[in-house]
């Protein structure tokens, strides 16, 4: 536990000093702030397109909390996916040169992987928390307060979805002998996840839809299967990464 704590501190310091924490926090905060604003002004923007044209009448429903939540999920998943993969696929592959030195010290390889995952989980946890808080605040100001329980559940499911991407990108980072190789493998994982999302309700993508319904109190089936699959993929990503790294020869 002592070595894990030390290694996690090192990871967090690295995320801070290399500005990764700042980048993720600012991007997710910005989209958290902008999502309710976009939801509010989009109908007016669209209506303004029809102004001055006598034969065009654009009729749109008034924006609602549901639109604000939809915008938040859409923006956070798009940019969250990009950030989660970009920040994670180089985490181990990009550090191979240092590993020849580090693994001759009493640093277990499993602890190294766990600390990497924990660091990235904290990074995205902080970013998502800031974004979600900003989104909730602006939704209350511009619309009305969403159901707190549903909103928290939606953020939790969104977080699990991000953790799944991080875990699989870490696995790619361990499998790839170079950063480029790791990036290629991570890209394949993401494509497979997206295709699976289009084909089955058991894919991690179903968590996003479930979260959206929970936050807007819309009815629909729960996605416990997708939740189980997502948790399993996280375990496979982190555990697999750890096992593979333990078997790999370093350097040379």
């Amino acid at each position, binding site marked *: 536990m002592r070595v894990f704590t030390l290694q996690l501190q090192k990871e967090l310091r690295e995320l801070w000093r290399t500005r990764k924490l700042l980048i993720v926090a600012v991007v997710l905060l910005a989209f958290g702030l902008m999502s309710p604003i976009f939801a509010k002004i989009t109908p007016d923007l669209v209506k303004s397109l029809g102004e001055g044209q006598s034969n065009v009448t654009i009729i749109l429903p008034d924006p609602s909390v549901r639109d604000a939540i939809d915008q938040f999920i859409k923006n956070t998943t798009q940019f969250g996916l990009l950030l989660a993969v970009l920040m994670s696929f180089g985490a181990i592959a990009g550090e191979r040169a240092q590993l020849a*030195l580090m693994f*001759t010290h009493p640093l277990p390889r499993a602890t190294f992987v766990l600390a990497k995952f924990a660091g990235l989980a904290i990074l995205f946890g902080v970013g998502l928390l800031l974004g979600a808080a900003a989104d909730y605040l602006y939704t209350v100001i511009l619309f009305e307060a969403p159901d707190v329980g549903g909103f928290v559940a939606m953020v939790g499911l969104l977080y699990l979805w991000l953790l799944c991407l991080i875990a699989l990108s870490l696995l790619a980072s361990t499998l790839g002998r170079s950063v480029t190789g790791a990036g290629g493998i991570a890209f394949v994982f993401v494509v497979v996840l997206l295709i699976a999302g289009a084909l089955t309700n058991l894919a991690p993508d179903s968590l996003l839809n479930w979260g959206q319904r929970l936050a807007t109190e819309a009815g629909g089936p729960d996605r416990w299967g997708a939740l189980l699959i997502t948790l399993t993929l996280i375990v496979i990503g982190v555990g697999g990464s750890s096992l593979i790294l333990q078997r790999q020869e370093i350097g040379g």
Partner: protein
Amino acid sequence: MPAIEVHGLTKRFGDFTALDEIDLAVERGIIFGFLGPNGAGKTTTLRLMTGLARPTAGRVVIEGVEVGTNRRPPIGYLPDAPTFYHWMNAREFLRYIAGLHGLENPPIDAVLERVGLHDAAKKRVGGYSRGMKQRLGLAQALLPQPAVLLLDEPASALDPAGRKAILDILDDLRGEMTVFFSTHILGDAERICDEIGILDRGRLILQARRDELLARFARPIFEVDAAPEATAPLQAAAERIAALPWVERTMLHGSSLRVHVRDVAAAQRELLPLLAGLPVLRFEMLGATLEDVFLRLTNGEGLPAQTEGGS
């Protein structure tokens, strides 16, 4: 018990045999030079000794601990091109390493002083030169005060001043810990090593004490320089010497005489008295250099027969 024991160490990459049944034993407290041309298998050996790679066959035992088991051998390791976290400074990095080892009062200042990095301790490692990185690499290996220090080409890529600095630090460690370092720079090994192993194409072709090795390879040639006005008496002496049974041949160039001998011990005993009365400026038996030894061995010439006076 030796500090390092290597038994039948073999490493294959597919059909290629990088190391072929290496056997080696290194005494405690000495500086051991592991020599070999590029591609001989030096780095592979060190990776196997540190547990970063697994052997195809054989085993390495360091201070009684078998490498690759659950117990960690007491080693410090410096790879040939150490890479650090560029955003850390040297002190921070050493504190981090000390934390991994659970050291409560790590001798960070003393180690930084020893490797000559004390003044640059707060500078980001990203801005370090190659030589500074090598020193920091040495510092992190020394910090936990290991019983065995394993160094892969620690000075090979440095300029002469940087190389001298690193070799001086290693020389200071004699007796304090066992130092095992690989190099292809023979002068470095000749300067500080107590014992030498020569690796060629994955096979250990020799392990011997440095002094013994150099004596064994010493060329049986004596050189005499006399004052210029003594050319004639030197020529007369050369003719007398050439007739002796232990002399192979003599060569005279002005006031310089070169004597090739068959029996070094006899020459050491009898040659100088034969020059009595001559104004001798220099009398020297030509020694071997490690380069001679290395080139002869790696060219497949093998060991010379041991002579009576040659060891």
